C-alpha cells in the first residue's frame, strides 16, 4: 500500500568536477549517507567551463535527499574539504516525499 501523506524534506545538490567523484563518494560513506544520485553535467562558472568533452573536463551533479540536520552536516564537511581548491557549488532546497523512512 502506497502512503498518501506527503512529508517535507531537503534536497542537497552539489555541482562539482567529475575528478573528485570517488573521493566524495568515500566521504558520503563516512558521513552515513544512505543514498545519492550522480548525473553527468557540464557548465561554466568562476573556475572556468567544463563542457564534458572528456573525463578531465566534465562536471557532475549530485543529489542527496535527507533531513535538514544531515544536509547541514554534509554541506559543512564538503565546504571545508573542497571549497578552497575545486570548482564546486552547493545548495539546499525544500522538497516533499512520500516515504520519509526511506531517507
Amino acid at each position, binding site marked *: 500500500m502506497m502512503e498518501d501523506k506527503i512529508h517535507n524534506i531537503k534536497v542537497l545538490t552539489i555541482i562539482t568536477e567529475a*575528478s*573528485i567523484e*570517488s573521493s566524495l563518494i*568515500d566521504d558520503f560513506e563516512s558521513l552515513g549517507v544512505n543514498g545519492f544520485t550522480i548525473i553527468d553535467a557540464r557548465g561554466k562558472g568562476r573556475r572556468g567551463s567544463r563542457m564534458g*568533452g572528456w*573525463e*578531465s*573536463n566534465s562536471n557532475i551533479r549530485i543529489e542527496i535527499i535527507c533531513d535538514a540536520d544531515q544536509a547541514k552536516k554534509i554541506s559543512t564537511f564538503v565546504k571545508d574539504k573542497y571549497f*578552497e581548491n575545486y570548482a564546486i557549488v552547493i545548495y539546499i532546497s525544500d522538497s516533499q516525499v512520500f516515504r520519509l523512512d526511506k531517507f
Partner: protein
Amino acid sequence: MLIAIGLKGGVELAKQSLVSLLPDMVAVIFMGSLLTLIAYPVLLYLGKFKVGDAASIAAHYGSVSVGTFAVAVAYYGTKNVFYEEHMPLLLVLLEIPAILVGIILAKGITKNTQWSIVFHEVFLGKGIVLLVGGLLIGWIAGPEGIASIEPLFFDLFKGVLAIFLLEMGLIAAMQVGSLKNHGVFLIAFGILMPLFSAVIGCLFGIMLGMSVGGMGMLATLAASASYIAVPAAMRISIPEANPTLSLTASLGITFSFNVIFGIPIYLKIAELMHSTITG
C-alpha cells in the same frame, strides 16, 4: 583502441621472456622520472609558475600520451619502419613514475598525501586498466589465441584511430581558446620540451641497443604529454594546481604539435643520431 595497443604488445611479450626486457623496463621508469625532474625547474624558475602548477605540468610531460603513440604506430606502419614490439609495455610503465615524482615535488613525502586514493586513480583509471588488460590478454592468449578477435581489434585500428583523432581535434581546439590567457611561455614550453625529451628518448634508445624505429618510438613516448591519466591524478593529489594550465599545454599545444610535426621529426632525430653513432 587501448585494448588493441595492449593486445599487440601482449602477443609480443608472449614471444619474449620478461627477464630479457627488464633493463628496458627499468630504464624507461628512470627516463619518466628524469624528464619530470628536468621539466620542473624550467617551469618553476623560467616559467615563474607556482610550485603546484610547475609540479603538475612537469608530471604531464614526464608521462605519456597513448593517443600520440597510436598515431606513431600508424605512421611507422605506413612507412614500414621496424620498431621493438614491446613498446606498449614501456608505454604503460612510463605513465606512472612521472605522477609519483610530480606529487613528491609538490608535497614532499608527507603523511598528508592520500597515497591510497592516488594509486587507485593511477592503476584503476580506465586507460591503464584497458592497456594492462589488453597486455595480459595478449600475453596469455598468444598469437593463435588472438587470431579470432583480430578483425575487430587490429583490422579496424586505423578507422577507430581516425575517429579518435577527430574527437581529440575538437577537444584540443577548445583548449586553444585558453591559450590567450597563458601566453607565450606555455606555447614555447609545449613545443621545445617535447623536442628536448625526444633527444633524451633517443639517447635511452641507443643505451638500450634499440633499432632506429625503436629509438624513434621511445623518443615519441618521451616527447608526448599525458592528458588523461595524469590530469585525473593531479587534480586529486595536487588540488591547488590549475588544471587549465597543464591541459592547455599538453593537449592544446603538445598533442597537436606531436601528431602533425613531432612524430616524423623524432624519427628523423633517431635516424641522425643512429647514423652518427654507427658511423
